[in-house]
């Protein structure tokens, strides 16, 4: 017989967990008492939201499930944003929440919240374990559900008496859930049809999303693109799923995507969407999206098929598995690599017409320039985390991601405050890679307390604040669509970020002009502790191109 807390910890060890991100609470003391003697490392964050983001960063960096453990009531409600963030981006997490004893559930007991109810629509699945005998099976199932099919966060709510109660411990070898049988292998006949359609296409575009990264299908995408000689556009979540410096790469598509990738999609006769969900930030006005194209959609989640855009040829399956088959079929069908000279020259002309560009001036350091510099100096192993806003879009546009899992960003929910805790998580998963959080002054202040966590665990990471003293992206909307009637967007009482960093025991550095950047960034890369770099930028710098929301490519604003 074992105590629930022992069952929990032993099961986590069996699942290969290294780190638990969390924040304490008295209901979890049974667990800490077991963790005390275990090899697991508990990383205490300063806020539960950050614990969830850190576990998420660990998961995105490693490809394994991230684990987060927080207390009942307010601890549990504080993770809601982290959970929703992971849910929207299909990130595998196992979140453990303490709960009041079963006898008190529903009594409005001290620090009680119905977290299973609260998180039902933002988790892939959740459990309230009421009997310690169900605990081992529940944990096994939770990891299985989180990491298979379309991944996602799973929450396990554990009442105090379940953690202190005793049961026979047997960790199940296998999982059987009647209603859950993800379809990994794609339908072969359908794959053959797709190969056929590809061989007839004259203006194909491959459109990759986060699913390519989650399933590890990047090599297969590259092989497909080269075999059929098709340009590749990526969503924000797909960046890194195809080499950013490859000649077939068009860059990001959608709202802040490149002009030429949007034009290419608009003129394509075939769209091959892989692990992407036709998010509204990508499609803009649905009825004007890729009007001339046959749409192929490869995705593990049948519910994404024809959800937004009507799909002509769907294949439900794991992107890597399906593409592997597809590549075989394509090889049979396409003997000679098509040249597509006119298609590529069309794309080239769009690229020349409106390249990505910004103007440098003496007055201020341009954020786009900073991103290009970081990309150049950090090396291809560097992992970038971002927050949400203009800086995020500039990263997507100007940083050349060459490998999967090197960009960690909240694509679906768009969570400001994600970047720093995610950087902590990913640095623990990938200690040998430089980790840089590129953020805005607004976003940084949402979880800046986590500098303390990074300092406490000696986690060297770099935070680059593109400090424009405003909620830049919202200000940009006000500037373009509300007649410059700026409201609720100025950040007048920003702290001195350099002094702030230093007060945490981190290094604080400041870049005032372009020539400061090289030495300071070099120093940051060499530091063995967290570094915060404050870079003053211009409030009125804007992200272009931009397709106004609900608009189509025809409405694209290039400057």
């Amino acid at each position, binding site marked *: 017989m074992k105590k629930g807390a022992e069952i929990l910890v032993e099961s986590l060890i069996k699942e290969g967990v290294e780190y638990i991100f969390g924040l304490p609470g008295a209901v979890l003391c049974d667990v800490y008492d077991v963790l005390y003697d275990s090899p697991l490392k508990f990383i205490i964050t300063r806020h539960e939201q950050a614990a969830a983001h850190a576990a998420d960063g660990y998961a995105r960096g490693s490809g394994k499930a991230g684990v987060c453990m927080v207390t009942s009531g307010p601890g549990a409600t504080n993770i809601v944003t982290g959970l929703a963030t992971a849910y929207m981006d299909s990130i595998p997490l196992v979140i453990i929440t303490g709960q009041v004893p079963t006898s008190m559930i529903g009594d409005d007991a001290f620090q009680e919240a119905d977290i*299973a*109810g609260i998180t*039902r*629509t933002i988790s*892939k*699945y959740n459990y*309230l374990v009421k009997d310690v005998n169900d605990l081992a099976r529940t944990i096994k199932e939770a990891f299985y*559900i989180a990491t298979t099919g379309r991944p996602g966060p799973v929450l396990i709510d554990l009442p105090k008496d379940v953690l202190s109660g005793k049961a026979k411990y047997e960790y199940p070898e296998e999982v059987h*859930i*009647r*209603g*859950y049988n993800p379809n990994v292998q794609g339908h072969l006949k359908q794959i053959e049809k797709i190969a056929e359609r590809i061989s007839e296409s004259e203006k194909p575009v491959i459109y990759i999303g986060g699913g390519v990264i989650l399933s590890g299908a990047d090599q297969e995408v590259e092989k497909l693109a080269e075999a059929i000689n098709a340009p590749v556009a990526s969503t924000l979540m797909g960046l890194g799923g195809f080499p950013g410096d490859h000649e077939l790469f068009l860059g990001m598509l959608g709202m802040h995507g490149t002009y030429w990738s949007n034009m290419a999609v608009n003129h394509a006769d075939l769209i091959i969407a892989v692990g992407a969900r036709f998010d509204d930030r990508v499609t803009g006005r649905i009825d004007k999206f890729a009007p001339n194209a046959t749409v192929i959609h490869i995705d593990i*989640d*049948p*519910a994404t*098929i*024809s*959800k937004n855009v009507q799909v002509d040829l769907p294949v439900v399956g794991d992107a890597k598995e399906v593409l592997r088959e597809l590549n075989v079929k394509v090889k049979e069908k396409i003997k000679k690599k098509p040249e597509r000279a006119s298609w590529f020259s069309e794309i080239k002309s769009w690229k020349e017409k409106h390249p990505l560009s910004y103007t440098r001036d003496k007055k201020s350091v341009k954020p786009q320039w900073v991103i290009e510099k970081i990309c150049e100096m950090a090396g291809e192993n560097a992992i970038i985390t971002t927050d949400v806003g203009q800086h995020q879009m500039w990263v997507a546009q100007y940083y050349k991601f060459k490998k999967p899992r090197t960009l960690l960003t909240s694509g679906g929910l768009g969570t400001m405050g994600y970047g720093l805790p995610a950087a902590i998580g990913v640095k623990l998963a990938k200690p040998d890679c430089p980790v840089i959080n590129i953020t805005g002054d607004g976003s940084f202040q949402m979880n800046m307390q986590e500098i303390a966590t990074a300092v406490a665990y000696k986690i060297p990471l770099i935070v680059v604040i593109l400090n424009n003293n405003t909620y830049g992206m919202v200000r940009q909307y006000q500037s373009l669509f509300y007649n410059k009637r700026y409201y609720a967007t100025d950040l007048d009482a920003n702290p001195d970020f350099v002094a702030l960093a230093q007060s945490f025991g981190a290094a604080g550095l400041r870049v005032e002009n372009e020539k400061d950047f090289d030495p300071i960034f070099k120093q940051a890369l060499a530091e063995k502790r967290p570094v915060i770099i404050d870079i003053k930028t211009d409030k009125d710098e804007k992200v272009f191109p931009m397709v106004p929301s609900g608009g189509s490519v025809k409405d694209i604003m290039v400057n």
Partner: protein
Amino acid sequence: MKHVISVLVENKFGVLARVAGLFSARGFNIASLSVGETTDTTVSRMTIITSGDDQIIEQVIKQLRRIIDVIKVSDLTDESYVEREMVMIKVNADNKVRAELMQIVDIFRSKIIDVSPKGFIIEATGDSNKIDALLDLLKPFGIKEIARTGCAAMSRGSQKNHK
């Protein structure tokens, strides 16, 4: 268009909330929902009546299938199926109209399950059309209260996929 969707689910707490939550979170409307255990007590059947165009219904079904506790989803609408609903109706019934009411009850093969000096409680089963028709007929007498169960439905014949 009206659709009758039959859903087999794990018989666990929280499942009803998950299914109902799916509808509310996406703004899909539920006209009726009924739940009960099947012969396998670990499995319940929900019958959901909803309406929408084909694309919405396709989404509803895909989203239902995505719920981990959902074992099987079938849209009965295009199959041959039977549906039944039960209703209890409390209706005014003084001496003058009792005979007439009893006749209506008879024609509809329903039952009077409670009698008081002022009224009856009538129990009726049938498909929703029949129940609506009965309610229409009773309305002039003065209906005081009704309790409808919502529909239960089952495909006809020997298809074994619906437990």
